[in-house]
């Protein structure tokens, strides 16, 4: 957990993993891998191949994680040698005025001798209704508003445009809902003493993280990413720009060609170009700004889709393996981070294999269960334990569950990326929908549950209670539990149940009902 005291800023704990644990874990991973290479286990080559690919992916991700967190050093505070002018860019595209107002007010309060706040207002070109409100806001708070009039490039274009009309050698970029803390610049500017430093990234923090299941899950995922993963990237100079909460050297960005306007994950790609040009980056694990987590299924899906699509685009169109200028470690790190979003495909491959058996009786693996479990059990238990230790006990089941439940979203992003479809940039919603109905987002998950149940019944009918049926049914249950959050959050089921109970009770009361409550899901 971020460590709070009165005098030091909140920061992510520097994780120290005992070397022996890492080595034991690596041994368990390799041990597990050897089972798959023994091809005497093959039941059906196609299914076995699918499982093998899935496990190769898992092992890759796991080894990548291990490689990332192998050694994490403290980031030491650096006293700034000088205080150059800094622009504060706040990107706005249709967010409500109240939210932007908080950010602006906080930005003005940042403790720094030479800063200028600019609101980058894309409302006009994006066709948002309140673009004028933003201009009023700027006027009211006496900050500069740069309202773009020529469209193109979404957020990237917005920033590039702003860069063309401003001059400060550094700028700090914040999303409309990420409120910077007073000491933001004082803690970060010192690292720019190093002339090769291109940007300093600080973590995102969700103020509303305890609101509901999704905000909590989303925050816990960020804890994993901004905790051990980003800290580990530091030693390999592989920290990438995360779109908000960063202090950037203008010259470095322009040297890399500005913010790329063709990609939906412009931040990820920009860092790639910046690293190619030989610049350095740093991750500072101190919480210096707070923002808002996606509050419902729609917002969460949109966010995950955007990140997935962007990263996968980078992997396919700008594959780090083949680009010059990056170190080996950087290539591995970019691939590893982008590759994370392939997990949707992999999870689904794994989830459909037991269904194959239940419906068609085809077994991928021909082996009495015991042998596999001996290889798999140490691997999976040590993975869980390693996660627990490496995240300083902050990793939760919810975080992993939410990732896996979003598998269909990732799959769609993958398909879109491979086919090259154009996606409209959608702003992550920060507004609470009343009595939200997001069933459409949960439909694939629901379908899986339904198909799974039918499959189990079908297989029980066909084979009776055999160990194979039980194992595959257990896997289906396993997947259902992981897919569940989307179904749970798709609709206010509990409200429906309580209302129903109240109505039913009402029927037995004497006298007529004063009013009948009927739920109408609002769009």
């Amino acid at each position, binding site marked *: 957990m971020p460590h709070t005291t009165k005098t030091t800023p909140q920061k992510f704990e520097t994780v120290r993993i005992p070397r022996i644990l890492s080595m034991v874990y690596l041994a368990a991973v390799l041990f597990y891998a050897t089972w798959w290479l023994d091809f005497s286990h093959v039941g059906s080559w196609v299914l076995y191949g699918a499982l093998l690919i899935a496990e190769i992916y898992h092992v890759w991700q796991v080894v990548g994680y291990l490689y990332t967190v192998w050694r994490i050093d403290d980031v030491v505070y650096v006293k700034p040698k000088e205080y150059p002018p800094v622009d504060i860019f706040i990107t706005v595209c249709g967010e409500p005025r109240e939210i932007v107002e908080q950010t602006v007010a906080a930005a003005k309060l940042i403790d720094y001798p030479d800063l200028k706040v600019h609101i980058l207002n894309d409302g006009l070109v994006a066709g948002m209704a309140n673009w004028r409100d933003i201009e009023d806001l700027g006027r009211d708070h006496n900050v500069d508003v740069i309202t773009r009039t020529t469209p193109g490039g979404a957020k990237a274009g917005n920033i590039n445009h702003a860069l063309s009309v401003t001059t400060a050698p550094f700028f700090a970029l914040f999303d409309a809902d990420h409120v910077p803390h007073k000491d933001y610049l004082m803690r970060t500017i010192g690292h720019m003493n190093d002339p090769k430093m291109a940007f300093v990234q600080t973590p995102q923090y969700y103020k509303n993280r305890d609101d509901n299941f999704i905000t909590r899950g989303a925050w816990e995922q960020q804890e994993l990413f901004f905790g051990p993963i980003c800290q580990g990237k530091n030693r390999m100079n592989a920290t990438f720009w995360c779109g908000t909460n960063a202090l950037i050297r203008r010259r470095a960005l322009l040297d890399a060609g500005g913010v790329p306007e063709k990609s939906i994950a412009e931040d990820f790609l920009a860092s790639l170009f910046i690293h190619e040009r030989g610049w350095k980056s740093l991750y500072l694990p101190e919480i210096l700004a707070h923002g808002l987590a996606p509050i419902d299924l729609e917002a969460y899906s949109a966010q995950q889709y955007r990140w997935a699509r962007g990263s996968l685009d980078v992997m396919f169109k700008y594959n780090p393996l083949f680009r010059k200028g990056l170190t080996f470690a950087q290539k591995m790190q970019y691939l590893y981070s982008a590759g994370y979003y392939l997990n949707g495909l992999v999870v689904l491959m794994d989830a459909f294999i037991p269904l194959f058996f239940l419906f068609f009786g085809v077994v991928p693996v021909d082996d009495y*269960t015991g042998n596999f479990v001996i290889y798999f059990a140490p691997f999976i238990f040590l993975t*869980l334990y390693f996660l627990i230790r490496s995240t300083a006990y902050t990793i939760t*089941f919810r975080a992993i569950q939410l990732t896996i439940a979003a598998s269909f979203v990732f799959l769609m992003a993958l398909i879109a990326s491979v086919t090259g479809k154009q996606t409209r940039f959608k702003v992550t919603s920060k507004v609470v929908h009343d009595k939200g109905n997001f069933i459409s987002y949960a439909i694939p998950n629901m379908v899986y549950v339904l198909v799974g149940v039918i499959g189990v019944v079908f297989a029980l009918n066909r084979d009776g*209670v055999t160990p194979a049926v*039980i194992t595959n049914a257990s896997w289906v249950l396993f997947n259902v539990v992981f897919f569940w959050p989307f179904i749970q959050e798709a609709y206010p089921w509990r409200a429906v149940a309580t209302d129903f109970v109240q109505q039913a009770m009402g029927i037995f009361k004497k006298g007529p009902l004063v009013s009948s409550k009927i739920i109408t899901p609002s769009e």
Partner: protein
Amino acid sequence: MSQSSSSSPSASLGIIRWYDLAISAIWAIIGFGLFMRVWGLGAEGLRLDESQSVWQAMHSLDFIREYMLKNVHLPLHNSLLHLWMLLFGPSEASVRTLALIPGILSVPALYFLAREFIRPRWALYATAIAALSPFWVWYSREIRMYSLLTLITIFSYYAYVKILKENRVRWYVLYALVNIVGMYTHYFFFLILLVQLVYFFLTWRVRFSDRPPGEQVGEKRTMLRRFVLVGAVLVAGFVPWLYLLVTNYGSGSLAPILEKPDAFNVILQFYEFMFGFHTDTLTASLVGGWPILILGSFFFLSKRAPSSPLILLLPVGILLPVAIGFIASQYLPLFLSRYFIIVTPLLFIFVAWFIGELPTRSRIAVGGVFLAVLSVLLINQSIDPRVPTRENYREATQYISSQVGPRDIVVASPPYLVYPTQYYYHGDAMLTTYPIWDKRKGGIPAITDEILEQDLRAIKVGHSRIFFLVSTDLYGSKESKTYLDTHLTKIAKHQFSKNLWVHVYQAEYASKASPTPTGESWAESEEIPKGMIHVVAPGETLSKITFRYYGDYLQLSRIQKINGIRDPKIIHPGDILSIPEITPQKVL
């Protein structure tokens, strides 16, 4: 934070809160577990291993000691049993009570041990698991040293943990006493001492006590000195036995011959620890559900404080003995689940700890379901006659006793089976084994074709039928049975438990009935020899059979008596009846 689920139900239940309900439920469960240990203690006949214990204990203490030396076991338990039987007799219920007492005491003992690791309510949960554990219940009702071993293990760990926490002389004394008893109970007890040694050095830098940190390393050195002293005492206590072992070993070992374990055996073993013994299909189904266990371990991921280092003792104490046993068994197979009962106390505590660390809602669901499943499995193990560890020697031997005549012979194979057979057999025929074995002379002869041939010849001579009692899962039984099947005519077979069979073979035909003094012969049909056997055909009644052989119904009661038939109306097709010769005096 999410709404606490306990607020509204308590309102609707009034004064009774869920928590109290849960605690009461757990006490009820513990009571149920204790009841299941006691209920019907003598109802089942002694099993093979049990009857061996009883046989050994029937002899003098010196004999016991000698015998145990050769038998890869330690003398304490059977010596105790010897004294017990002097006081309480050898019936099933009374001998099993000797195992029952530590079996019952283990349950509260586990509570106190668990309290050292986890909070009281979860220690109580661990106690519920222990009470319900079908594995523990089984060995509480088996007259062998395993329930005693479990209790001693708990005491040993208790003293050890207390030493780590308090470093007081009284705990060292308890530790030494308990370990001496343990060392003389079972060889695998030494694995516990090994675990404790390994853990001590693993946590050399860890502070368990409440003393200030400055004293800590000094404290560890004191502990080490004291442990060494205790170790010397233990070694001194064990040296006499070691001496005897070294000087006597090699003179005909009676060590069990087991198979090399593979990975699957390890998994099966843990399933047995948790769920007990069940039919193969049920066990296979339970094992098939292993992804659920993986899922359960995912639930474990939640925000928590780091666990106390004492918890580390649990996985070390569970995995290290099994790992060592597994590796050693690749060279000298000794991988039976009951030997590893020493890990079960820590295993139950570990499961209780694990469930206690789950997020609140999962905790209740998983905890409740687990106890429910255990209860069902306990009942199944106790009731289902097809459970493979159930051995029905009593019924098998009683059947033989009722069927044999003085000219038959009863053969037990493998030779160990003579123990339970002797305990129950009260028939007229002679009892021997195959291969023929004289217990007091030495080990069981190895099975070779010559031995099988010459022993069979010896068995056949002068006997009409061979009643072959065989346990097909034991070493050597297959060869023996196959040899008989190929060299003799089988008359009947009857199954008494999963692996326990009685096969009846024709040994020799008796000579024809000698002519009566009047020179007339009796039977309607001369071809059927009298004084032999008759296999009941479908539709036959006892009176019909009697008439067929003797021409009248006078002998019906005699046939009934000789064959041990209580109700003459109840005979079954396939039953073997002994038809006695009629002596001349009875001729009309």
